[in-house]
């Protein structure tokens, strides 16, 4: 269970998070939706400690995320970044097996490579991709490599930051299916940030609508269309008129 209580974060006069409260039960898939610049990525980075909140507490399975052994804490997480964030100088398999080649999860070289190739297969990539550099791959393939890296060490919690941004609808569908399959088969807790409603319906168990630094609505994806929440309705229907200003 991940719990965020009264999280506040400002950058100068820009108050991005203004008391965010959110619970993500273990083994469920939570999707956070909201417009650009509403603080979705910041919320996610606060959990990982990449950004430090000004106030509020974050607990993972009841333990304060900012305390204790940081390596052990991070070893529980996998993350797919929006742009892939693959390391340009390393071949694909070393990107996937990055965590398995160093640190507390270090494995023998051959074993790490075998795991990387198996994970690449899991996301629909052939073995011949393993020795290529990330720059030689298409955007969709880079996302899949990023996904393979996120699941390589079989984490308990996986974060997906805009997993389908910049992909064509077919590739988006493939990535959405992969995410859903992986989350279900690994029994992982997932947290996804997106503004792609197709992704929301494909990936989510629960959704949370973030606007003006607070969660405006949260609930099961099955209740999303009948929420009666004006923010969520405007967002789902993509209307210019409503409580969310079109010009931000």
């Amino acid at each position: 269970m991940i719990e965020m209580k009264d999280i506040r974060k400002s950058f100068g006069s820009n108050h991005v998070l203004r008391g965010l409260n959110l619970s993500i039960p273990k083994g469920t898939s939570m999707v956070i939706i909201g417009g650009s610049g509403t603080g979705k990525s910041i919320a996610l980075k606060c959990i990982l400690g990449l950004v430090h909140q000004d106030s509020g507490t974050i607990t993972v399975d009841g333990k304060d995320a900012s305390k204790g052994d940081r390596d052990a804490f991070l070893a529980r997480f996998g993350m797919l970044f929006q742009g892939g964030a693959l390391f340009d100088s390393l071949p694909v398999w070393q990107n996937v097996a990055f965590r398995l080649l160093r640190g507390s999860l270090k494995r023998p070289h051959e074993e790490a490579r075998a795991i990387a190739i198996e994970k690449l297969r899991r996301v629909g990539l052939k073995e011949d991709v393993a020795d290529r550099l990330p720059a030689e791959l298409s955007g969709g393939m880079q996302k899949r490599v990023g996904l393979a890296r996120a699941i390589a060490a079989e984490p308990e919690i996986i974060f997906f930051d805009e997993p389908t941004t910049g992909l064509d609808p077919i590739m988006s569908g493939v990535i959405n299916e992969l995410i859903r399959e992986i989350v279900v088969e690994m029994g992982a807790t997932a947290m996804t940030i997106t503004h792609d409603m197709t992704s929301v319906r494909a990936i989510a168990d629960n959704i949370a609508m973030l606007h003006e630094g607070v969660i405006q609505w949260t609930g099961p994806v099955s209740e999303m269309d009948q929420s009666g929440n004006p923010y969520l309705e405007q967002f789902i229907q993509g209307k210019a008129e409503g409580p969310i200003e079109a010009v931000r």
Partner: protein
Amino acid sequence: MKPFALLGRAVLAALAMIGRIALFAVDAVSHMLRPPFYGREFLSALMNIGWLSLPVVGLTAVFTGGALALQIYAGGSRFNAEAVVPQIVAVGVVRELGPVMVGLMIAARVTSSIAAEIGTMKVTEQIDALVTLSTHPMKYLTVPRVLAGLIVVPGLVAVGDIIGVFGGYAVATGTLGFNPAAYIRNTVDFLEPLDVISSLTKGAFFGFAATLMGCYHGMHSGRGAMGVGRATKTAVEGAAVLILAANFVLTGVFFTL
């Protein structure tokens, strides 16, 4: 009042940056002493900073040594002191020109590439990805590069010194009519161990400063192509100024105190 306010603001900003760089340097050194160590990244940095810088260092040194010989010969001939070319070339190259030229070449070649590489990693979230993969960016990115700079640049300075002196030798014996054996004897006899020690010490400091500035500005790069470009420019400017200022201080420490 406004000009004073602007000046004060600029001075405070400069002092704050110096403070941040000093803290970054202390942090980098403290991480050098604590595991984990990334041997492969260190070897890669050694290769990039040392081996791949040899051509530019060699070319710079040979032309500088040759030009110095011509200048000393032309200047010395005004008061019948042409014979001091070997000694002045040796002292000038080993004490000053060798380390400074190598330091500036490293600032141009290595500082810029480190700042651009790390800056790009920052804006494409690769540094965030490192953190989520339980890898400390300071240990993985900064320590290998700074340690490699500290170790390999004195070697480059030694190579630059030898090639610079050879450049002077080639010009002096080839076009100015100096006897080759006498030139070498005069050079060797005139140089003292302190000259070489000061040269290598400067090299170590310049290597540390050049790589540190690249890492610092890369890690603190702004967003987008403009942010990376600005970080790269600031890193090279900072490294060059730091190298020249440190050269002045180290020369004072070695030869006047």
